[in-house]
């Protein structure tokens, strides 16, 4: 789904932002990318979305093609809900489909179905100002999952939520992914989130961003966030990932 080979990226031609990145994401895989802030993980995601231009001669393919804005294979989700305050929950959830050219009626029908699946049935006509943070991010999830894109690019989608809401939405994301078989590239700085959600956790060093570890998460699916709290494999993997991240820091400082 994503194929990156020996990628280097530099914005000013002097210092690398990303260095020697080799990365593959297979169809149906959920990969979390973790690392200290400023390590280039969001840049990596934006390269895949086509938001950052890929320099000549670099190898990065998304669904077998060069990354492109508006590609049908990709849906993108940000940390802040970025809902339009002038549109109802329903129209916000339908926005992606409308931009992609779907007829308004059909887009709304699909969006209404998605809103039900994220637990917001009955809130179709609510404006964002009337919704809580968690509910708004649920609408954003509905907007993302309403699109039939096989690959989801998520940039810390729960980064701005309080701890409890975060756990609820992580559970919801697990459910949605298990229902609809998507590939996900998930950027986060929250290691327990990364381990709980992903099949693999990729750890990046601080700038220039390199991949310093690629940890396979062994817990079987379907998972539930609540059960993971008492799962020894979860804690073991978490410790492992944490140690790799620490190595990245000491490397950098040394």
């Amino acid at each position, binding site marked *: 789904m994503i194929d990156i080979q020996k990628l280097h990226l530099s914005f000013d031609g002097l210092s690398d932002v990303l260095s020697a990145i080799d990365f593959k994401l297979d169809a149906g895989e959920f990969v979390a990318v973790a690392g200290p802030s400023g390590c280039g993980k969001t840049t990596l995601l934006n390269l895949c*979305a086509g938001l950052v231009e890929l320099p000549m001669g670099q190898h990065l393919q998304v669904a077998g093609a060069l990354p492109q804005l508006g590609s049908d294979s*990709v*849906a*993108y989700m*940000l940390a802040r809900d*970025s809902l*339009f305050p*002038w549109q109802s929950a329903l129209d916000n959830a339908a926005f992606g489909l409308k*931009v992609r050219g779907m007829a308004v009626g059909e887009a709304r029908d699909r969006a209404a179905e998605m809103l039900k699946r994220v637990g917001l049935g009955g809130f179709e006509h609510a404006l964002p100002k009337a919704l809580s943070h968690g509910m708004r991010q649920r609408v954003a999830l509905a907007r993302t999952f309403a699109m039939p894109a096989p690959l989801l690019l998520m940039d810390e989608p729960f980064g701005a939520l309080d701890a409890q809401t975060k756990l609820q939405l992580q559970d919801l994301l697990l459910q949605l992914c298990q229902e609809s078989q998507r590939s996900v590239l998930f950027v986060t700085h929250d290691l327990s989130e990364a381990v709980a959600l992903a099949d693999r956790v990729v750890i990046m060093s601080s700038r220039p961003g390199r991949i310093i570890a690629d940890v396979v998460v062994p817990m079987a699916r379907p998972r539930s966030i609540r059960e993971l709290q008492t799962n020894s494999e979860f804690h073991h993997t978490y410790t492992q990932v944490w140690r790799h991240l620490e190595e990245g820091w000491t490397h950098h400082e040394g």
Partner: protein
Amino acid sequence: MKASTLLNFVRHALFVSLLIGLWEWGARTGFIDQSFVGSPLGIATFTVNNVSDLRLWGDLGWTMFSVLVSFSIGASAAIATGLAFVTWPKLESFCEPYVNALNVLPRIALVPLFILWFGLGVGSKIAMGVSLTFFIVLSSTIAGMRGVSQDHVTLTRTLGASSRQMFFWVTLPGAVPVLFSGLRLGIVYAFLGVVGAEVIASERGLGQQLSYLASTFAIDGVWSLLIDLALVGVLIMKSMNWLERRLLHWQ
């Protein structure tokens, strides 16, 4: 009506009655010079006669027509220019010194030229209104469009939106709150420009009537027309408020 609202109303009614009473008493006793300041009773008499005079309504229509036309032209030209500036920043930086120079120029000083070019009719009044409205709406258009949420833009870009979709679905609605405060000011300034130009030289209009009454020492008439102008101003603001509630109910 709530008790506090009622109390407030009574307070203002008392204050205004006291003021009018003092003024009337002063005018009658000769304490205040009526030929310069007029008197409340005189103003009331003039107003009652004037309201039944077709001429007032003709002048009002003339002024309002100029205000609405100049506001429409000025605001649409400003929104189009603002959009062009935001789309092509190089054009903006090239035009900036000229825009700034025109903006700091006291626009009312252009009236003599406008009268030469467009005559004593509505043309010169509209030109004046446009010249005031344009710059205010322009700066708020630019500020509004620049202030559109970057998250909205990023998200819409990843969806591969066309520039048309980006403008009508994201940039324009996102700019409306700031743009609207510019439009609100813009229409008040259009009113100012039109009446100002009418006072200076005009065939008709409320401003021309006011200027004529003042030059013939009909002070009661001047006051009466000032009240009319204030009422028109309030009416304009009320309609803008109504429009804002309709457009920005989501805020």
